[in-house]
C-alpha cells in the first residue's frame, strides 16, 4: 500500500529525515515510535505532501504509484487520510460542514457518525476553535470517518486525551481501521467482506495507544533514522523498560 524508499527530507537546510525505508502492506497497521523531535510528524507531513518539507532524495509510492511530488489533495483523493496533532482553526467553517466536505459527495449520516464519537454538540462550532486536545482528536477522527481513506496516518492519537476518553478513542480508531467489533451501519459497505483493506501508520511516543488498538508491526524513529522494525508490543516493552536511548542502542549493536 505504502512504500518509502531512501527518503531524505529537509526543512530549510536542515536534514530532518535521513534515508528512510518503510513498507506498509495492505491491511496492516504499523506503529511508529520515537522520542520527541525525532521526525515522526515530519514523516507524516511529507507523506501527505505538505509544503515546507523538501524531499531531497528517494521517493514515496502509494498503491504502486510515485506520489513524491503530487499535490496534497490528489494524495487525499487517492486514499490517504491524516489525523493532525495540531490542526489549524478555520474561522466560520462549522465542524459539520467540514465533515461534509470530507465526504466529497458520498452519502453520509453526520449525526450518526458524530454520535459514535460523542461529538454531536460540537457540530455547530467552528472547526477546531477552542477545542481541547481530546476534542481535536475526536474531530479529526470524525472527519476521517467521513473521508474513508485507505491509508490512515494518525499523529499521536492519545496525546492530550484523558483516561475516560481513551477507550472511546481506541474504539473509534479500530472502527476506522476495520479492526473493531463495533461498526456504524453507514460505514459498512459490505458486511461479508473477507479481507481487511485499511492500512495505517500510527505515531506515538508513549505507546499508550497500544493498550487499545492492535498492531502488526512497530518501528522506531530516532534522530531522523528509522532504526528498528519488530513486533510493536516487543518494542514498547523495551522502551518502557529501558527508555529510547537503550532501545536504539540494541539496533546499533
Amino acid at each position: 500500500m505504502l512504500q518509502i524508499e531512501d527518503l531524505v527530507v529537509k526543512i530549510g537546510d536542515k536534514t530532518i529525515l535521513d534515508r528512510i525505508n518503510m513498507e506498509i502492506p495492505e491491511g496492516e497497521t504499523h506503529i511508529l515510535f520515537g522520542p520527541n523531535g525525532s521526525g515522526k510528524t515530519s514523516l507524516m507531513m511529507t507523506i501527505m505532501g505538505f509544503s515546507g518539507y523538501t524531499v531531497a532524495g528517494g521517493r514515496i509510492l502509494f498503491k504502486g504509484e510515485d506520489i513524491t511530488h503530487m499535490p496534497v489533495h490528489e494524495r487525499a483523493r487517492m486514499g490517504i487520510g491524516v489525523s493532525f496533532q495540531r490542526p489549524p482553526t478555520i474561522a466560520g467553517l462549522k465542524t459539520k460542514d467540514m465533515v461534509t466536505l470530507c465526504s466529497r459527495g458520498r452519502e453520509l449520516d453526520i449525526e450518526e457518525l458524530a454520535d459514535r464519537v460523542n461529538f454531536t454538540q460540537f457540530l455547530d462550532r467552528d472547526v477546531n476553535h477552542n477545542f481541547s486536545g481530546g476534542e481535536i482528536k475526536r474531530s479529526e477522527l470524525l472527519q476521517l470517518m467521513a473521508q474513508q481513506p485507505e491509508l490512515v496516518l494518525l499523529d499521536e492519537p492519545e496525546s492530550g486525551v484523558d483516561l475516560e476518553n481513551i477507550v472511546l478513542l481506541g474504539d473509534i480508531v479500530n472502527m476506522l481501521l476495520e479492526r473493531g467489533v463495533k461498526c456504524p451501519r453507514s460505514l459498512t459497505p459490505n458486511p461479508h467482506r473477507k479481507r481487511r483493506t485499511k492500512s495505517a501508520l500510527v505515531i506515538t511516543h508513549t505507546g499508550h495507544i497500544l493498550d487499545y488498538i492492535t498492531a502488526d508491526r512497530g518501528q522506531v524513529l530516532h534522530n531522523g533514522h528509522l532504526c528498528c522494525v519488530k513486533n510493536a508490543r516487543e518494542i514498547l516493552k523495551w522502551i518502557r523498560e529501558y527508555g529510547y536511548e537503550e532501545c536504539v542502542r540494541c539496533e546499533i549493536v
Partner: protein
Amino acid sequence: MRDSVNKGKPGDLDLEKYKPVSGSHDYIEDLSRVGTNESQRWLNVGIDVSENNRAATFIQKDNSVVYSCAKTEGLEMMSIGDALKKHDWLEGYMWQLLSPDKDQFTSRSNQMPYNGYFIHSAPGAKITRPIQSCLYMAEEGSIQNIHNIIIAEEDSEMHIITGCASAHHGMSGLHLGVSEFYVKKGAVVHFTMIHDWGEKADVRPRTAVHVEEGGVIVSNYISLHPVGSLEMYPKTILDGEGAVARFNSILVATNDSWLDVGSRVLLNEPGTRAEIISRGITAGGTIIARGEMVGKVAGCKGHLECKGLILNEGLMHAIPELKGYVPGVDMSHEAAVGKIDQREIEYLMARGLDEDEAVSTIVRGFLSVNIEGLPPALAAEIDRAVTETQEDMM
C-alpha cells in the same frame, strides 16, 4: 502602491459634477408587475417584491417614492414628506442627531431634501416580520438626496432591511442619505443594510443613532459588490443605562473599489455595552475599516474586532480606536490583517479539496460573521451572495 488618502477622498467630490434628478417616476400600484430586471436588482439587496413575510415595504426610485405600504398593527411607514404633514411633532426629530453643517453632503441634504422614509413603531409593538425599504438609483449621473427617520417607541421591536442599489453596475451617480434613528427605552431595532451600487457610484450616507435606557441597536452592513467610493461612519450614542449597540460589517473591495467604513459608539452611561465587528476582503480595492469607542463612565464595556484578508494587492487599513476617560471603562480591540494561512489551505487539501476549493471555503468562513436576528431567508440570501462574490473574486 495605493494611497488611501488620495483616491475618492470625501472632500474631493464635486457636487457640481452631478445633476439633479430630472423627472419623477410613477407610483407602482402592483409590485408583482415590476419587471424582472428591476425586481432581481432589488432581491439582490434583500428586497422581496412578493412581500412574502414582510411587515411593510417602501421603495424610493431616484427621488420619487414609488411604493409605500405598511399593513401591520403598531407600525407606520411612509415617505418623510407625508410623515411631516401628518405629525407636527416630527419636525422635532429632524436634524437633532446630525448637523446640517457637518459637511457639504449634509448641507446639501438640508437645502434640497428629496424624500426618504419614516418608520415608526408604537410603544410596546413587537413587529417580528422584517420591514423592507429600498433606495434605488436609476438616472445616470444624478444625485439621490434623502432624509430618513426611524423612531422605535418604548419597548417596541423592529427588524428593518434596507437595500440600496443602482439600476446597473456601470451607472454613475451620488447617493446622499441622512439617517437619524431613535431607539427609545427598552426598544430593540435590528437594522440590516445591503449595498450594491456599481463601479462608478459615489455613496455618502450620514447616520446617527440615539439609544435610551435598555434599548438595543443591532446593525448589519453588507457591501460585497464593486462601488466607486463609499464613505460612512455612523455614530451611535448610548445614552441610557444598559443600552446596547452591536455593529457588524462585511466588506469586499474588488478592482478599484474604495470603501471607508466604520462605526463609532459613545458609551455615556453605566452598563452600556458595544461591540463592533468588521470583516473585510480586498481583492484589488481599498478598505479603510474604522472603529471607535468612547467610554465616558465607569461600568461601560466594549469590544472592537476588525479582521482583513488581502487576496490581491490593494489596501486593507484597519483603524481601531478606543478612548477611555475614567477608570472602570472596559474596552478592548483585536485587529488582524493578512493573507490566508497556508496551513489552513493545506489542511483542507488533505481532506481532498483542491487549492481553489480550499481558498473559497476559507473565504466564505471568514465572511460568515454570525449576523444575529436575520430572518432565515435573508441569511440564506446573504450566504448565497457571499458564495457568488467569492467565486467572482477567485
